[in-house]
C-alpha cells in the first residue's frame, strides 16, 4: 500500500485485494506504462484518472490479462490478486478473468436474448441446470438494477435495450460469473446523463460485495463515486491516494494542474 496521506490510515487497514508491482507495459517498442505501483483495497472503488492517452485503459487491461489478446502488447512486472501473481507461470488467464470481471467502454451485449446474455458466463463454466441459471439471471439483473425493467422480456433480444440498459446488462453479465474484482473501462462514457447516474449509483452498491477499479474521463465522476483515486500522465502513475486528498491536497504539481483543469 502506498500511503500518501495520513487520512488514508483508516482505509489502509482494509486488506489489499489487487496490487500492481513494477508494472511496465509495451506496445511493440512503445513504452505505454512505466513502472507503475498501485494497491487496491478490498470493497473499495478505485478511480483511475488522467488525460486521453495517458495509459489508464492500458493499465486496467493489464489487471485481468486482457493484453494477452493484443498480439504486440507485452507486460512486465506483476499483478497480485490476494497476494498471488496472476502473471506467474502456470496461472491460467481464463481462471483469472473468471475472478476479475471487466465492463467495457461501449456496451457490448451479445446478439442474443437478455437471458442468454446474462447466463453466458455461467453456461461457459459448465452450469446447465435451467432453474439455477434462472436464479443467477435474476440475482445478477437485480444486482445491476435492471431486473424491474426487463423481467417481463428476458427472451427478447438484448439489442432492443437502450444504451444505458445495455451497459447495465453488461454489468449483470459480469456479476453472473461471481467475480471478486470488477474492472470498468469508462463504463459511462457512451451513456446519457440519466443512464450515467444510474450506473454511478450501481457502482456505489457494487462495492459492498466487490472491489471495483474504474477508469474515468470525468473528474467529477471520480469525485462522486470513488474512495481512492490514481492519477496517470503520459504512462506514469503520478499519484495515488484517497479521493478527497487527491482532489483537495494533491502532492504533485502535475496532479494539481490536471484537476484544476490545466490539461485536457
Amino acid at each position, binding site marked *: 500500500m502506498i500511503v500518501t496521506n495520513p487520512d488514508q490510515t483508516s482505509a489502509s487497514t482494509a486488506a489489499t485485494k489487487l496490487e500492481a508491482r513494477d508494472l511496465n507495459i509495451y506496445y511493440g517498442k512503445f513504452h505505454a506504462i512505466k513502472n507503475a505501483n498501485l494497491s487496491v483495497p478490498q470493497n473499495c472503488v478505485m478511480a483511475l484518472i488522467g488525460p486521453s492517452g495517458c495509459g489508464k485503459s492500458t493499465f486496467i487491461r493489464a489487471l485481468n490479462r486482457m493484453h494477452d489478446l493484443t498480439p504486440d502488447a507485452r507486460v512486465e512486472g506483476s499483478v497480485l490478486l490476494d497476494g498471488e501473481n496472476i502473471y506467474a507461470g502456470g496461472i491460467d488467464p481464463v481462471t483469472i478473468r473468471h475472478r476479475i*470481471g471487466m465492463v467495457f467502454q461501449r456496451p*457490448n451485449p*451479445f446478439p442474443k436474448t437478455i437471458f442468454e446474455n446474462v447466463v453466458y458466463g455461467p453456461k461457459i463454466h459448465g452450469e446447465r441446470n435451467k432453474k439455477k441459471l434462472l436464479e443467477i439471471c435474476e440475482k445478477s439483473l437485480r444486482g445491476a438494477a435492471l431486473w424491474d425493467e426487463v423481467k417481463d422480456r428476458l427472451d427478447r*433480444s438484448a*439489442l432492443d435495450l437502450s444504451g444505458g440498459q445495455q451497459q447495465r446488462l453488461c454489468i449483470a*453479465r459480469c456479476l453472473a460469473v461471481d467475480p471478486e474484482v470488477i474492472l470498468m473501462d469508462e463504463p459511462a462514457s457512451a451513456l446519457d446523463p440519466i443512464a450515467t447516474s444510474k450506473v454511478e449509483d450501481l457502482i456505489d452498491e457494487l462495492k459492498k460485495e466487490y472491489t471495483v477499479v474504474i477508469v474515468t474521463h470525468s473528474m467529477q465522476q471520480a469525485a462522486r463515486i470513488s474512495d481512492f483515486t490514481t492519477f496517470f500522465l503520459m504512462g506514469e502513475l503520478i499519484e495515488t491516494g484517497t479521493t478527497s486528498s487527491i482532489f483537495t491536497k494533491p502532492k504533485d504539481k502535475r496532479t494539481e494542474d490536471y484537476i484544476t483543469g490545466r490539461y485536457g
Partner: protein
Amino acid sequence: MASMDIRVGDTARAVSPAALQRSGSQTILAVLTGLAALASFAIIFLMLFFLIAYAYPAIRFNGIEFFTSGIWNIGNQYGSGTMTRNGFSAQPGASFGALVFIFGTLLTGALTMVVAVPLSLMVALSLVYTVPKRLRPIANALVELMAGVPSVVYGLWGMVVLVPWIGEKLAPWVTAHLGFVPFLGGSAGSGNGLAASVFILSLMVIPIMVATTRDVMLAQSNSLFEASMALGSTSWQAMTRAVLPSVRSGVVASVLLAFGRALGETMAVLMVCGAAINSYPENIFSPVNTIAAVIVSQLESALTDASGMAQRSLAELACALFVITLIINVVARGIMRGADRREGRAA
C-alpha cells in the same frame, strides 16, 4: 412603383433559371439512375428470356426426360430420317437426359462446401484473432492472391500435379486400405474425378469465403470476442459461442456465394473432373461431370448435330444452371432475413 416592378422582375429572372436548372439536372439524374437500376433487371430478364426461347424446342422435345434420364446422346449423325417428339425433331437415337450433370453439379458443390466451409471459418478466425499481427498482412495478401488466380491455372495445376498424384498414390492406397468404407472402395480410376474436382473447387472458393467472413468478423465482433474473454471463456469458446453466432448471416451469405461459384465454375472442373457421360459416380474417385463443364465439353460435338437439337439441349442445361443458382440466391436471402430478425437487427 415602376422601380418596384423592375425589381420584382429582376428577382424573378435571377431566381427562376437557377431553380429550373436544379430541377432539370435532378430530373436527368433521376432518369439516369432509374435506367441504370432498370438495366440490371432487364439484362438478367433478357438473358433468361433468350436462353429459354433458344432452348424452347429442346424443352418440348426432351420433356420430363431431361430431368429423369441420365443418358446424353446426340443421336446418329449418319442415320436415316429424324426422330420427332412434340413437333420438334432430332437425330435418330438422340436422348438428352441431364440427370448425371445435375447430380454431378450438386454433388461436387455440396462436397466442396463440406470441405471448404470449416476450413475457411478456421482460417478467417485465426486471421482475425490468433495470427501474430506482423504476419497478418502477409497472410491476408496470400488469401487475396489465391482469390485472384485465374481458374484455368488451378485447372492446369490440377491436371499436371493433383490428378496424377491422386491416380497413382492416393486413390490406390485409399481403395485398398479403406475400401470397406462406403464410397471409398472400388475402382481407383485415373485420378480425374470427384475427389480432384472437390479439391480444386475448394482451393478456389476458400479464399473467397475467408475474405468475406474475415471482413464480417473484423467489422463487428472484436468487442464481442473481448466481452467473452473477459467473462473467463477460452478463445475457442469466444469464437464459437460469441463471434460466430453474431456473424451468422454474413457467414451464410458468403457460403452461398461460394456455393454459387462452385456450381458455376467451368474450366478448372472440366480439366480434372473426368468428364463423365452416362454414368454416375461409384466412389469419390469416379469421373463426374457438371452442368457448366459439360456445356463446354459437349459443345463441339453438339455443333455437328444438323438438327440443332443438341445445341438447344445444351441451352436447356444452361437454363437449369441458371434456375439452380437463382433458387440458391433466393434461399440465401431468406435465411439472412430470418437471421437478422432473430438477432434483432433491422431486416
